[in-house]
């Protein structure tokens, strides 16, 4: 029993990261119908920015306000990168077939992976990520955990609730939902569609940066390719939950994380594919995902 609880704990930890990244996929897809394959790479950029900021601050143990500050700066810079990417790479293709934008997204992803690799101060080698948060191990009823794990799960949930609040309760949020519903009609109602899409990309990329920092705090090794694998897993989580639905992304992320860890414990040879098996079943029986709604396309 304790072992199972312990494994679920590890699953939640992994799942909270998947969920946080899945949110970015789902938001962008929900609003402009684009699967932004570069999302995983925003995560990497975020982690690297915070890594360099922490180094610039002198490394070692940083005080909490400084840690919070550099994470927020990292998120803002990554958010701006998201906006810039949208403006340069995706906006010109908004009226073109979706496939063009999709292929562009793959191109952007490759660029974001390989350009930093070619920069001499980044390079291909993995780097140790500094310990930004204090690590204390403790036990709850035989289940071992540590302060970083708990902090990460809590922070992820706070960010997700915050995002939910923004989209459902604020003016920007209702604009986003209006654009999601019908771009042209939203424009006719006086909503600045371009700005709304920019805000979406900003939030998505900033969340990815946060995800990157959390991820790197739990698995303290970063390299320029870290976003590929995480991006794929988070994408599956988003589809699993119903792409385009924010609650679905959260749920999908946690299901993926827990399923993967439990499956690995049952048979370590097969664990890696567990998430994908679940995805196949979901697509077979509920093609729109757990929370997704079917949209009828009128011809």
């Amino acid at each position: 029993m304790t072992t199972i609880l312990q494994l679920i704990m590890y699953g939640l930890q992994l799942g909270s990261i998947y969920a946080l990244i899945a949110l970015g996929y789902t938001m962008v897809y929900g609003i402009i119908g684009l699967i932004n394959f570069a999302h995983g790479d925003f995560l990497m950029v975020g982690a690297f920015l915070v890594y360099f900021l922490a180094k610039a601050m002198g490394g070692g143990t940083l005080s909490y306000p400084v840690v919070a500050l550099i994470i927020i700066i990292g998120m803002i810079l990554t958010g701006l990168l998201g906006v810039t990417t949208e403006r340069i790479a995706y906006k010109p293709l908004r009226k073109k077939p979706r496939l063009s934008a999709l292929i562009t997204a793959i191109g952007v992803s490759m660029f974001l992976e390989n350009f930093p690799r070619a920069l001499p101060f980044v390079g291909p080698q993995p780097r140790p990520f500094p310990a930004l948060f204090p690590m204390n191990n403790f036990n709850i009823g035989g289940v071992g955990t540590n302060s970083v794990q708990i902090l990460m799960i809590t922070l992820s949930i706070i960010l997700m609730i915050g995002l939910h609040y923004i989209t459902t309760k604020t003016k920007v949020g209702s604009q986003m939902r209006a654009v999601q519903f019908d771009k042209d009609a939203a424009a006719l109602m006086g909503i600045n569609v371009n700005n709304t899409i920019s805000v979406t990309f900003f939030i998505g990329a900033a969340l990815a940066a946060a995800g990157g920092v959390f991820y790197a705090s739990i698995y303290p090794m970063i390299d320029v390719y870290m976003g590929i694998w995480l991006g794929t897993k988070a994408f599956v989580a988003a589809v699993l939950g119903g792409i385009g639905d924010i609650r679905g992304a959260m749920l999908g992320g946690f299901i993926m994380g827990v399923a993967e860890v439990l499956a690995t414990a049952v048979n370590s040879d097969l664990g890696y594919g567990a998430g994908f098996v679940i995805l196949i079943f979901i697509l077979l029986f509920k093609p729109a995902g757990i929370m997704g709604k079917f949209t009828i396309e009128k011809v």
Partner: protein
Amino acid sequence: MKKLVSILLVLIMTVSLFGCASTGTGSGAAPETIKIGVTLPVSGQSAIAGEYMRNGIELIVDQLKAEGGLDVKGKKMPVEFIYEDNEAKPETTANAYRKLIDQDKVIAIVGPDMSKCILAGGPIAQASKVPAIGTFTTNEKVTQIGDFVFRACFIDPFQGKVMAQYAADNLKATKAAILYNNADDYSKGLMENFIKAFEAKGGTIVETQAYGGADVKDFNAQLTKIKAANPEVLFMPNQFGEVPLQMKQARQMGIEAKFLGGDSWDSPDVPNIAGFDIVEGAAYDAAFSPVDPNPVCQDFVKRYKDKYGVNPNSNAVLAYEAALVVLEGVKNAETLNGQGVRDAMAKITNFPVPSGTITFDETRNPVKGAVINVYKNGTPDYVTTVNPN
């Protein structure tokens, strides 16, 4: 304006993708140039290993430049190394081999460094009668591809045996656990041979856990089971990009077993990323040790350190040695073609290289020993040399 920006972007993207992949070193396509292909991971998960390999080979390039070319039967010939990225993937390796053989018309191929990659590329070289020499390709099956495939390193059964011997004889361990990558022929090969040798020594393997590829970063589920089995040593024959996180998570969970690994651990990145306290006492076998007093080794280490400021690792040494073997083959070839170079390479005996001497046996595997290193304060400390018997 827009057009200009987009052209510029396309240029940057192209450059970033191919980066340094196409920078040849010779003076272009002069007819007398000896072209040698090098397949190595420039991008992808193992890009760092590729950098070490290139560093090793560039030392030879420098030397040839200083000497004015390669001395082939009294004639100085320019040598060009053509680097081709294999992204550490078997399919890309096959493409790289095809390109090097069909388009660049190389006389021989050095690399890549991974068993699973040369297993995909090797058959192409074999069919085209172009000799290929893997650098870090320790899996037994590599040289079984055919008589045109060589390797510069020892083989997995030997490595697995060496580590099992060390665990049983030096550490007096009786209970071992294994965490290995089931998507990596190297890792699987060492795992199988460690088990065989360790059980032959009377030990028990209490737990064997796998994970599905280099991208996996979370090993908590596997380690939970390993912890429950309470081993004395934990054998992790995995790539050096994967090992630091495994060590960290194991210690975090409270696993106290001694860590053992294979030659893939031989990189300063392991202690740097895992932390000096976590790698303390961890042991692995390696092709060479930078503190080996052998003068050929010390000369190499000095030249490497002068140029790059750090100690070479096994990736660099083996790429350097593999390239030297090819050049030696070119020098002694009766006819300057793939067949001639192959025959000359197969005849190499007692050829001095930094890690000792190379003599190829009839299956084109070099006969050479392994050193055991143990981490002490974050640096590998040479413990002993184990020779093949």
